[in-house]
């Protein structure tokens, strides 16, 4: 009981308001669950559609769960503090993925290009992560 009370207190921080962000995606999935049940009332002719609802609901619920767990671990979002880094890795990853697809269509000789970009992207992410770890405190939001 004390654990639950503690959890509840951590969730209800005054900085982020009383209503919880995680409830939105979860409520969304629940609402679609209701419509799925209504579909059941119309018969089993379109039973295969249920899988679409289930898959979509699972994705959204996972998002809500991630928000919830993040909230429990970080009652005040650490990214509210400034974190100035660059997005070079994003460009490399995008080109790497595009070259993989192009390679599937036009031939394997595109894969070395994809590999170069993806390795570069991973290297940049690792480099950024190491820099991130080096910064102990960052300027707060005014």
């Amino acid at each position: 009981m004390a654990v639950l009370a503690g959890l509840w207190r951590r969730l209800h921080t005054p900085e982020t308001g009383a209503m919880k962000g995680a409830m939105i995606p979860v409520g969304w999935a629940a609402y679609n669950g209701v419509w799925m049940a209504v579909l059941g009332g119309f018969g089993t002719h379109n039973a295969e559609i249920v899988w679409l609802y289930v898959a979509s609901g699972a994705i959204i619920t996972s998002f809500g769960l991630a928000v919830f767990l993040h909230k429990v671990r970080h009652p005040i979002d650490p990214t509210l503090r400034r974190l100035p880094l660059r997005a070079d890795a994003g460009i490399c990853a995008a080109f790497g993925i595009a070259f993989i697809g192009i390679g599937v269509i036009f031939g394997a000789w595109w894969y070395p290009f994809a590999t170069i970009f993806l390795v570069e992207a991973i290297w940049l992410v690792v480099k950024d992560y190491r820099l991130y770890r080096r910064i102990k405190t960052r300027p707060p939001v005014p």
Partner: protein
Amino acid sequence: MTQLAEPPSITPAGPELVEPRAGLVGWATSIDHKRIALLTIGTSLLLFLVFGAIALVMRVQLAQPNQHFVSLFTYNELFTLHGSGMIVLVITPLAIGMCLYLVPLQVGAPMCAAPKMAMFSYWLYVLSASLLLISSTLAGPPDTGWYSYTPLSDSQYSPGTGMDLWVFAMMIGVTAMMIMAGCVLWTALRMRAPGMSLMKMPVFTWSAVVTCLMSVAAFPSLVAAMSLIAVGRADPAILAHYKWDMAYQYLFWFYGHPVVYVMFFPFVGCVATVLAAFSRRMYFGYHFTVFALLAFAAGSMSVFGHHMFTTGQIIDNYFSLTSVMLSVPAGVEYFGFVSTILGGRLHYKTPMLFALAFIPQFLVGGVTGIMLAMPVLDYHFHGSYFVVGHFHYTLFAGSVFGAFAGIYYWFPKATGVMLDDKLGKWHFWLMCLGANATFLPMLFQGFDGLPRRVGTYPASMHIGALTLTSTIGAGVIALSVAIFLYNVAKSLIVRVPAADDAWGVGETLEWATSSPPPPFNYDERHPIRPIKSYAPLLTLQWEEEDERQREAASS
């Protein structure tokens, strides 16, 4: 000034982390949500011109019966590119790009969540657009319509690498927007400034939240559908059974209907914001509107079957019920629009004109949509120009007008310079005339039996006057867009500076920061103002006025 509960001490970070790069490289590698969003919006507007030009070519082809301006094969390619391009590469990125720009500002966050992922999604989007355009120049270009039903889209009936590349471009284009939407959603749910509770988020932010929820929930379905086409193209025998064709349609329309809502909800938010600001009122019925937005968007996942009534493979009654039910939250939103402007002190600036025109025009799109949600009518209209008129009223006369309301309203905030209001009004009136001249006759062409996706039609149909009107209307739209481009170019050259609150009517947090905002949105000179309502600046203004009146009375 709102502070964190325990602000950490300020320690200077390494200069290599703080200093942004200059020039184009700085933009291309930025983690600033504003830059990523402006790149996305700019790219989508550029592609709007490309796919709009394609639409003009189609309208010229259809201006008169038995025309041969382009071949019928080319016409098939044109409508495929126009449809897939406008939906996946223009309006969806424009919508989500606006959310990426405004949500962190409106909730008081210094940046968006996962900015590197946001930039990754932008580049994936750029590559998707490039590949989609290249696909039309290769052997076997895409010509199966934006929905590309199987088995027409498999390699037996649509051979060639052009179609292969189109499938891949669609996949990564949709994935890119799903990732960007996830960044926006996380920002709204987890990175709000202290004091910004969910029920104090502005209406636009709520419209962004529901948009992103739909994107995250529905867009994976298109990736699955495109994967199914890819398998069919690798070996058509694998998916030979007709049930796979139905499975494809389920997957496609599970994405295909919610994406329509993704393409207009942010613009509903734009319209709501502009109406309230230029009426000098708080948005009427905020709580009801928030729940209507949530119900409308969540319900959108359950209506996709109305696209498939005529397949005979869907429960008509269920999908008709769910589709018609959406008119209830839509009615609540309309009630909010109308009640906000009733009794307000209206200022007829360009954004307000676009927002006001959105109301009746989008209503035409909505009401014709309700007609199509009824199986008895849908069996009659299915595959006709009535459907084309309906969704162009929704997406052009609705969404694009809402988008321009937002673009004119927030342009000074994003660039620091004002657009010319007179040119803006020319743009508005011409676009209003052009849109209605183009799309209203399409409804009647559908009544008269003109099917969709035909490159020509016989003179015996006697619809030449209607189709010519549509073509002239499309030309007027093109003229209005040219005026808009001239206005943007002129404003960026002349540079009439915009104040922090450029219109003097700003109600939400972004109008308290500089124009354009500093790198982390708010700084010591422009702190986050106290958040006491969903229109925090207006509330503060009222409180200051009350204070002044009290002081005057006591003195």
